[in-house]
């Protein structure tokens, strides 16, 4: 609410893709936010759930289709990941308010249950680790085996989590290629991880 101080008119934007699946910015959450803002005495000038807020052109086009409601608003409150929020910021000079803290790129275990498995690091090691990412699943991102804190197969950092290196070892052992773990894995090459990154596919 502090981010909405100094203005009473708010336009709410949700996202029909990930934020809908994660129940952080779908139709339902946008509606609940509308109710909450109304209860707090704010005027909601309009709402929209964009199909992929990260799609910059589409976000720009969809916001233009609601130009009046957008113009009337002091703030655009966005319930999507940080990528979507920035698409909105790029499409308008209006003040943009992030309504979510984006946590991670998650795999879906089952409905409403997400697990971080990939860090998008640009230097994939999965071929050597039985398809389990130590950079992401090991709490310390260690490349050459478990740390000294592993205990009965549990992670030092979170006793309820399994040590990634136990999972890796067991998988490779079952596949009869545990000898892969005898090779020293070289240090990560962060030159691959340009920041901020961009990619243009060749035509």
């Amino acid at each position: 609410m502090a981010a909405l101080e100094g203005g009473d008119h708010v336009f709410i934007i949700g996202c029909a893709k990930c934020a809908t699946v994660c129940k952080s910015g779908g139709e339902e959450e946008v509606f609940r936010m509308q109710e909450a803002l109304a209860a707090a005495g704010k005027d909601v000038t309009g709402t929209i759930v964009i199909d992929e807020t990260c799609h910059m052109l589409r976000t720009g086009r969809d916001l233009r289709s609601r130009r009046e409601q957008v113009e009337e608003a002091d703030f655009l409150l966005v319930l999507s990941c940080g990528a979507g929020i920035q698409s909105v910021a790029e499409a308008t000079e209006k003040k943009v308010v992030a309504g979510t803290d984006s946590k991670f790129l998650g795999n879906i275990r089952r409905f409403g249950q997400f697990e971080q498995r990939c860090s998008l690091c640009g230097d994939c090691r999965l071929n050597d680790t039985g398809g389990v990412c130590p950079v992401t699943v090991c709490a310390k991102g260690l490349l050459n085996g478990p740390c000294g804190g592993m205990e009965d197969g549990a992670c030092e950092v979170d006793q309820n989590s399994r040590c990634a290196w136990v999972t890796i070892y067991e998988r490779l052992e079952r596949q009869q290629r545990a000898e892969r773990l005898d090779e020293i894995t070289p240090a990560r090459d962060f030159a691959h991880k340009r920041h901020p990154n961009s990619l243009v596919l060749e035509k």
Partner: protein
Amino acid sequence: MSSNLARKLAASEFVITAEVAPPKGSDTSGLLKTASFLATYVDAINVTDNQGANMRMTPLVAAGLLVREGIEPIMQLTCRDRNRLALQSDLLGAAALGIHNILALSGDDIGCGDHRQGRSVFDLDSVLLLQTINAMNRGLDMNGAPLSGATSFFAGAAAAPEVEPFAVTRPKLSKKGAAGARFFQTQAVFNPERLAFFCENVQPLDVKVIAGILVLKSARMAEFINRAIPGLKVPETVVERLKSAVDPAAEGVRIAAETAVKCRTMCAGVHIMAMGCDEVVPQVVAVLK
């Protein structure tokens, strides 16, 4: 090689090490007092590196001060707080200060310390740090660029003889050996039979084993360790023994001394972890002499 520790281990002399924590503050008088006291009983003293992820003086300076006092340090160096540039520059600094022994560690999780909001680094891990030290000893940085003056470190690593499942940790121990670890300082040993198994298991690596001996003061301390310190596990039988003892502190020393004596025949040395009660170190050392 100017490391006394290396010389003794090479000569198959039984070594005893202990540890000091750098101060949380700029006053080094306590550090120097403790180190001087311990130095009369042990061969080298580990200088911990923000242990338990609690912020303290850099071990580079603390170990350097020990060298100045004529005390041989084993500087612990973790990958948690430094990227590859900082690790290497600290190592060059250590070499310049006359620090010869390095214990290369990954480092405890930042979440168990006093700066939980901080970001941990882990640019390298302990294996890669050992490899880097090895390169520096050959006069090269980790990218193969020449150094003006090679280092001559005697590098060691951590090992956990009683951890389960041990098999998962085993490949990393081989890698530590291959990367240049010349000694293992182990986590606390409570079951000498497990240490015997461990020593036999790692024997092909040609890495000297220094067994960790934890001196406990009370059952409460043991329970605290089990709860709060990663990688340290005091078995229930030991906790019970401390609980039923009339004088738990004396019992703790007795347990440590018994374990140290049993380990003596299996390994190259012991590392006494007195958890701040340094006055008990001479009592444990006495039974080994």
